[in-house]
């Protein structure tokens, strides 16, 4: 493992504070001025099962969590069985000796359950025990424990402190000061993907957020609902995803910038209204965060299988935007940019992402003032026609209340917005949409739409959060390649991909059928030599991906 790198994994049952322990560890490392990547794996249940949180920290940017950890703390027997063989060289394993039963076990045993039982709600505190063991292992003392708990475990602080200090003392003889983590240059904010996405939209002008809970998009709803007052945003969780999308379109009619958040199944329910956004030319930003499909699939796990759905959803023909961020930071700026473009071109914009980005946390260097700000063309005065035929297909907007008649409609219509089935009018409206799509494509040609990492060696094409895994895998292995990531997927930035016609790129994606590879073939006319796919519901482990890439690079 790279010098300065350190990975901490805590595993246990749902309801034991496993995710919280990962978050506290992330806060601890970022407080030390280090870069952090934290991800969680959990099941669709509230109590029991197996959850784990992995935190990798380094002195350079980290874009994935490694499954071979330096320190693993297992709160139960199942975690021990799953993680005991995933230690990095020199790694340390701590298990809960109360949970193991008779036998001989690897690593250091600490009686976490019996220590926790001295306090109320013992199971909720188990994760904190893992954090206390971590602090002992990296040589932090009692005063550091007290400082962290005040920030991260402030509820029932006194009991938390007593418990954590007791575990710290129990762990110290076994694992104390086994690792030395250098401090980094400065403390950076920690953001999770969905948080970055809603904050980015807010910076771009978001006024109203509508969503129905669905993993892995729900944390966007929860975050913005929790900050609604502080930020001055209206947040509504209505009766269904159908209501969500239709309410968002209604809000847009007034000029309020609106957004929805969902996953594949919920997006399915919104598709009729998505088509209405196309027909009526309503700007709306949709966060579509993928999980394992089809149907209910595996609700809490990761996959990139909604690409074609995002590109093709909706009956009829209309221009749209689809883009997918590669990192948490990119997600924030992309969200603002998509909101702006949606309003400039009066089209639905889909921010396509996945569980791994939505729910993973990273340290970021962000200047919020660099975010785009949505500025639609607004009617300058005089006679108004909502669907006036224009050269670029965009009709300036007007918001009620106004003396001028302002008719929005889901029908083919005349320029005023009254229903028309006239053959000439229908032709003109279709051509208006085509010109608008062309104008959108031209706009994108003047923008940064493709990321490239590295400039020598084979071409690797990837997109979305898989980009992070590819870049991390190359850093891990020290191999050279040119990684090309289209941020925009519709319009597809074929002009900026830099792929030669005879190029036989390697494609890396998380779908079982190679949806992205087929898109690349379709849009670039290049045939991938190899498609590295993963479809077990888990994001690529950088080390595992490095091994797969080694075979083809």
């Amino acid at each position: 493992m790279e010098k300065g790198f350190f990975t901490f994994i805590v595993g246990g049952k749902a309801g034991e504070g496993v995710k919280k322990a990962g978050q506290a560890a992330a806060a601890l490392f970022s407080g030390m001025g280090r870069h952090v990547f934290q991800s969680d794996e959990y099941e669709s249940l509230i109590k029991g099962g197996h959850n784990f949180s992995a935190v990798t920290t380094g002195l350079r940017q980290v874009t994935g969590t490694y499954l071979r950890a330096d320190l693993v703390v297992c709160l139960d027997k199942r975690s021990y069985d799953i993680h005991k063989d995933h230690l990095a060289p020199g790694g340390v394993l701590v298990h809960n000796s109360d949970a193991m039963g008779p036998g001989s076990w690897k690593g250091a045993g600490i009686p976490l359950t019996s220590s926790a039982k001295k306090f109320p709600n013992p199971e909720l505190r188990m994760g904190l025990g893992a954090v206390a063991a971590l602090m002992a292992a990296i040589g932090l003392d009692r005063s550091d424990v007290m400082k962290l708990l005040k920030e991260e475990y402030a509820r029932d602080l006194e009991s938390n402190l007593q418990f954590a200090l007791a575990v710290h003392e129990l762990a110290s003889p076994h694992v104390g000061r086994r690792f030395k983590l250098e401090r980094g240059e400065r403390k950076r904010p920690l953001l999770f993907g969905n948080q970055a996405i809603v904050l980015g939209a807010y910076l771009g002008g978001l006024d109203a957020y509508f969503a129905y809970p669905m993993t892995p998009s729900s944390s966007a709803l929860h975050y913005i609902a929790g900050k609604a007052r502080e930020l001055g945003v209206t947040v509504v969780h209505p009766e269904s995803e159908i209501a969500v999308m239709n309410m968002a379109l209604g809000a847009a009619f007034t000029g309020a910038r609106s957004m929805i958040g969902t996953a594949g199944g919920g997006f399915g329910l919104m598709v009729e209204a998505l088509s209405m956004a196309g027909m009526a030319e309503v700007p709306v930003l949709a966060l579509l965060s993928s999980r394992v499909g089809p149907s209910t699939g595996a609700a809490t796990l990761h996959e990139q299988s909604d690409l074609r759905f995002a590109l093709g959803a909706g009956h009829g023909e209309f221009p749209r935007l689809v883009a997918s961020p590669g990192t948490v930071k990119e997600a924030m700026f992309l969200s603002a940019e998509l909101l702006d473009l949606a309003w400039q071109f009066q089209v639905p914009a889909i921010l396509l992402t996945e569980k791994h980005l939505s729910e993973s946390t990273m340290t970021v260097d962000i200047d919020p003032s660099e975010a785009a700000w949505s500025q639609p063309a607004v009617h300058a005065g005089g006679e108004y026609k909502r669907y006036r035929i224009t050269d670029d297909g965009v009709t300036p907007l007007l918001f009620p209340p106004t003396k001028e008649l302002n008719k929005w409609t889901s029908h083919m219509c005349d320029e005023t917005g009254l229903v028309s089935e006239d053959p000439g009018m229908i032709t003109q409206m279709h051509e208006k949409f085509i010109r608008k799509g062309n104008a959108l494509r031209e706009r994108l040609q003047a923008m940064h739409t493709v990321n490239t990492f590295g400039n020598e060696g084979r071409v690797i094409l990837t997109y979305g959060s898989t980009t992070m895994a590819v870049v991390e895998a190359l850093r891990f292995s020290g191999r050279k390649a040119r990684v090309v990531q289209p941020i925009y997927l519709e319009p597809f930035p074929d002009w900026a991909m830099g792929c030669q016609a005879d190029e036989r790129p390697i494609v890396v994606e998380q779908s079982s059928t190679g949806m992205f590879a087929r898109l690349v073939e379709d849009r670039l006319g290049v045939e991938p030599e190899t498609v590295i796919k993963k479809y077990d519901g888990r994001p690529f482990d950088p080390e595992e991906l490095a091994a797969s890439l080694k075979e083809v690079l």
Partner: protein
Amino acid sequence: MADDLTTYHENTWCPGCGNFGLLNALKKAVLALEKKGVPREKLIQTTGIGCHGKMSDYIALSGFATLHGRALAVAQGIKLANPELRVFSSVGDGDTIGEGLEHLVFAAKRNADITALIHNNGVYALTTGQVTPVSERGFRGPSTPLGNPEDPLNPLALMLESGATFVARGYAGKVDHLAGLIVRAIEHEGFSYIDILQPCVSFNNTYERYNKTTEVMQEPPASYDDAVRAVKRRDKLLLGVFYEAKKAPFHIEVQGDRNPAAQRLPRQDRVDRVRKLLEA
């Protein structure tokens, strides 16, 4: 009626359609509201799909012609985003009591400050006469040639149960009475529902029946329970306001007096607020 509330669009309702009475009542209501100080530009209409949906082509008011069943959801989005607007939905019975029932029940439950004007003709007229959720048992249409096997819903009882704070019934054949109801419904703060009996001359001609069985209430029901009994009467179809109550509307519960569209936060404010969050 040629006037400045009428658009240039050709009217294609069947001669004698109950919708004419509805359109005239709505225009009278708009004029009456203007006299009361509500300018017409603040009246925003959403419509669904069906013969009723043509209202948006025929009346010169701003609005949004939406999907089948979704007019109330769009209306709620408009009202939340700009509470200064008076939003009403012209919708059908198949449209809103069938396809979009969830939005109707929830708009009532959350007391969204919008008005639902149900063009209740008991039939899908635009698609040539199929049964709707309020059609009588035995009703024969192209999808139920042997007769409707289901009993009808009573939407007024459903609205009372769901939490609507203004529940009324009007009749397209009593235009002035209906106009008065529409004015009161739009003025009402909270969710207002008017079930409007609308004969369909082509597929469900109920003029004769309604002329015989409708009766304007002289006194409103004295209580909620009386209102429930009144809307369930089968011998008489009572017209008027069955129930009216005061309750904070949804947009106030959600965002207080803030108007998201009219008081959009400037860019710098947003940057400052996000900076503060990131530094925390």
